[in-house]
């Protein structure tokens, strides 16, 4: 496959950094194919190469306009790298992309049926723990939530990669992935609360 990742940011003819009106998408910046699972060594290699190409310290320019352009492009590279390494960001990005490409619209609030019941119970327990501050129980919840979060995200990722490898996409399946992804956000909220409570101890 012809990789054009440098050309997203660099005008190959003049060798100058070019500023586009729109930031290239995170996968395009590094010339990686649109997929949840990615080659982290390749990303690392490309990130370092782009950093050398774009970092303002290696482009000490005099005029203010070129300077601002260099900073902005370098910021794109850093931001893209950070986002691409963030599993939740990748999943959400790809899910939205597939929906858009296929003209689908899923319910962004929906959660899997039994999940909500379990969470209500957990919420109640957390309210009690907010007063009781039981460290070992909080740590147990933290451990479990982290485990479930990771598992959900992995399942969504696998589902997304499956969709991306097929020519047609099933709307119900997409909704399932969306709901599953929403549980990840839910776990994040719980983990935030738990952390706050643990900090209090």
């Amino acid at each position: 496959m012809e990789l054009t990742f440098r050309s997203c940011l660099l005008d190959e003819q003049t060798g100058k950094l070019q500023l586009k009106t729109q930031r290239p998408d995170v996968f395009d910046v590094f010339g990686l194919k649109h997929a949840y699972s990615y080659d982290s060594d390749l990303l690392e290699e490309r990130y370092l190469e782009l950093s050398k190409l774009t970092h303002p310290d290696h482009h000490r320019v005099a005029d203010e306009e070129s300077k601002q352009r260099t900073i902005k492009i370098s910021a794109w590279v850093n931001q893209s790298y950070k986002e691409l390494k963030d599993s939740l960001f990748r999943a959400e990005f790809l899910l939205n992309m597939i929906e858009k490409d296929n003209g689908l619209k899923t319910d962004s609030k929906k959660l899997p049926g039994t999940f909500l019941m379990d969470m209500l119970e957990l919420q109640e327990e957390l309210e009690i723990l907010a007063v009781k501050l039981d460290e070992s129980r909080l740590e147990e919840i933290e451990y479990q939530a982290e485990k479930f979060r990771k598992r959900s995200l992995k399942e969504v990722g696998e589902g997304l990669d499956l969709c991306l490898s097929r020519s047609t996409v099933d709307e119900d399946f997409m909704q399932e992935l969306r709901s599953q992804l929403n549980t990840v956000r839910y776990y994040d909220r719980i983990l935030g609360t738990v952390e706050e409570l643990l900090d209090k101890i």
Partner: protein
Amino acid sequence: MKKDKSVEPILGIDLGTTNSLAALFEDDQAKILKNNDDGIVPSVVTYLENGEVLVGREALANFSENPENTVYSAKRFFGKTYTELGEKLDRLPFQVLGDDSSLKFKVRGREVAPLEVSAEVLRNIRERATEITGQSLKRAVITVPAYFDDTQRQETRIAAKAAGFEVERIINEPTAAALAYGIDLQKEGKIAVYDLGGGTFDISILELKEGIFKVLATRGDTFLGGDDFDHALVDLILEKANVEETKIINNSALKIALKFAAEEVKKRLSDKIEVPLSIKLPEQNFSYEGKITRSEFEQSIRALVKRSLRSCKTALKDSGLSDDEITQVVLVGGSTRVPLVREMVQDYFEKKPYVGLNPDEVVALGAAVQGQILSGGKRDVLLLDVVPLSLGLETLGGAVTKVLLRNTTIPVSATEDFTTSVDNQTGIVLHVLQGERELVEDCRSLGRFNVKVPPMPAGLPKLKVTFMVDENGMLRVDAFEERSSQKASIEIAPTIGLSHTEMERIVEDSIENAMDDFQLRMVVELRNKAERIVVATERVYDKAYQLMSREHVDEIKVWVAKAKEALQRGEKNQAVLEEIVDHLGDLTRPLADLLFNQATTEALVGKTVADV
């Protein structure tokens, strides 16, 4: 012809709490600038009665005569207010003033900001650099503790500006150290830099790969360092001497004597199990005769070292690495010479720290490396630094919404959407904050600005706020209201407990005075020299008549008289003084030679030389 600025070398400066030093990249390596010494300028400033300022060793040599007018560790006060520090100030021999928004030292009846003290140290460094290299070096990379917030960084910038420097970059001390070490080691890997200096502690985790130094995480404590070890030792000495702590509170001379005695004991305990200690200060009604053992010292500082390890734990967590992924632990800062520190760090990382470079020099060396990168002279190395502390905005109920999280690689930009909470609000105040805590009152306020919005129902305005941090770590906040296309932006220049005019005055005064100061110093040196010659010559007139022609001695007498006259009237003209000193020097040199020869001969025939 326009001078090409980019080829002027950039000085690397470690502006330390206790010691400062400078380095320059030459012949493909960074070297500490030394003037037949170790290159270290103690960060100590003494204000004399006649308005003169002594810096470094000169100040240290004179502190006992000026305990209230000698300021040390000024860097610890950057970004702090009097109220914040409270009782910690009791221990200091110099007077600290201020309120909940400011902090100043009172020396010789005038108020001096901490950054003005540091500016004196930096000016001294600039003069030394000029002396050593023979060229005026104006551009500098200056290091700060990684955990310094924007206010403290800003103070450092202003201090440097006041000392006549153009600040090319402020970089973090542990990062600078990693640059120096990385180049020294020539090895890729994941490095933990444990930096315990005189006043601050930093831990940074970096990854070195293909010449790129990527900072993964950084954490620290801006009020933990060797100074605290000294204080612990002072407490120990007081306890052993059976002296109540309250007794020293109003005694500057005793405070400063104990502080420097403690520092000395601490240093010696690095390679001795115990050191005898004898402090006799009859005037202060204090005496102690005994010893301090290493284990006593270690017991008194163990909790402090533990505190640093807690920061290590968070940094490691932030970096996403596990303990065993760290390939190298390096120690930076004079306080890492303390054996207990080495031992506890080694236990924590389960790795023997690498100490190949001098911990006092490594930060300045790294700053010089970064200086070389910035001057375009080093293309094979690149430093990817991070924002050390999260940046955010105040939202409803005094909460802080983080826009940029700590440890994000710079340059970086991030955008968040905000809206109004009240109907027909005509403006939105953006309150920019720095820190990890959830509430506004626990974070550092960096500034506020107002964005106008046309009156609309609550929740309807769409305000896009973009935080942009450039490669210098400087934050710029842009706001854009989409429905009305209203724009506003600010470059964040944090308030530092000084008014804007006050800050300008400091910078302007010092730039104007820099030249005068330098000349004044020359004049003072010449006067001292003239005085020394006069005193030495007058003592040997009798001998002189025996050894040389009457005419020559009379000529000497004429010039001695001229010198005395000049000294008496307080001659300020450098040229006049130079003429006198040069002339007297030339005239008395043959006399000195003759006296020396005579003294040796007399000694050989068994006479004493004492009367020569």
